[in-house]
């Protein structure tokens, strides 16, 4: 599926192929997709864009699914707790490695105590090993930053090789 297909089929929040600031020090042409998230439908678009970009970067099929899962788990929090937010998907590289960076940010109430929401026993969902701590295990790098009242930003990276 090409980018124009997506734009035709889905709503217009997708802004494909904006040059990333990373492009300067990257040997590969970097792609970036921004998706405004307000509903499950928007999560679908973000997943689709991430899968599309990651498959171009050489991720295995299973890893594409894990990346889509990570987006679902994090973006659903933005929809549930913060009335939506934004997902930015970027191709990144470091040395010979290529990868994908996903930043999910919202302007919601924020998380007062990040270490406790990252703990496996924190909520029912966490106890099952999904939610934030579960998502951390799917990705190579995972970082949560939050300011009370200012919203939350989750930055995740996964490397293709």
């Amino acid at each position, binding site marked *: 599926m090409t980018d124009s297909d997506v734009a035709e089929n889905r709503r217009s929040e997708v802004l494909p192929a904006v040059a990333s600031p990373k492009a300067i020090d990257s040997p590969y042409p970097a792609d970036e997709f921004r998706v405004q998230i307000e509903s499950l*439908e928007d*999560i679908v678009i973000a997943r689709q864009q991430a899968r599309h970009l990651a498959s171009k970067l050489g991720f295995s099929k299973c890893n594409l699914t894990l990346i889509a*899962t990570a987006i*679902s788990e994090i973006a659903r929090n933005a929809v549930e707790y913060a009335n939506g937010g934004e997902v930015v998907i970027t191709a990144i590289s470091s040395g010979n490695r290529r990868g994908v960076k996903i930043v999910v940010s919202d302007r919601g109430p924020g998380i007062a105590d990040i270490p406790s929401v990252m703990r496996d026993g924190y909520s*029912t969902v966490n106890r099952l*090993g999904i939610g934030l701590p579960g998502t951390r295990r799917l990705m190579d790098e995972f970082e949560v930053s939050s300011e009370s009242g200012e919203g939350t930003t989750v930055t995740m990276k996964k490397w293709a090789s």
Partner: protein
Amino acid sequence: MSNDELETKYVATLDAFVSKPDEGLLLDAYELGRTALIQGLGVLEIASLHSRALATLLSRSATDHDRSRLMESQTNFFVEVLCPFEMTHRGFRDANGVLRRLNELLESQAKRIAFTLHDEASQLLAAVHISLAEATHDLPPEMVARFEMVKDLMSQIEDRLRSLSHELSPPVLLELGLCPALEVLADGVSKRWGFPVTVTSSLNAEIPPTVQTSLYRITQEALTNVAKHAGASRAEVEIRQTTHKLVCSVRDDGIGFDSNPISNDTQTGLGLMEIRERVAALGGVLRLQSHQNQGTDLTVEIPLEN
């Protein structure tokens, strides 16, 4: 959502995905897996749900073309359904690693405390003995007799410290290995509680230190349970090795139990829970067999890495 509703929705979603695969339906597949997980379905249950859905759709497929399209699409769908379970599985693996490291940490702490108790405290006590001997040297005999009592008490303290230190970190385990350590343990239990404990062992390969320590602790805990709760007249410890695993059993002829001891008795429960955790950290299996008045057989199997 009831299991029936889940299944109906599963079939409908898979059906829609096969007719026209898209990301939205993949997200639905993922959400179905997530719901199933939260509702307590296991991997086997979700796998059989999937195969039932597949069978239903296969029976509805009219042509070979339909069937091959179904078979192609269902994999992507199923992978998506399984993803939440994958997360849980990774969490379990992580937790096991943490448990293992925690165990090692506790063992090394126990070792340090044991060393302090045994070596440092007994040196101090020895110094007190010498000072006492010097102090009483010139005293009249009736006074010396009173100091003898103090000496007796000090010897008792030394004995207690030594046995406490050995319980914390049995030096024989480090020096001689698992089987001799189990014999010393059995001997100690037997003397303290007054029933015979036999040990039979047949081991031929090198056992990793963490496994040795764990098996020692498991046996210790199991024998303590036997001594405190079983009212047994004898107990036996058997440890043997097959190609891929170590099997260790602790059996007694005591009062046994019919129901799950973990829910009945907090004290035994805690001991058993500790055993269960230790076994889990090594990827092993715990089997507990018991009937009222027919004794108890606690067997653990620990896989050996090659």
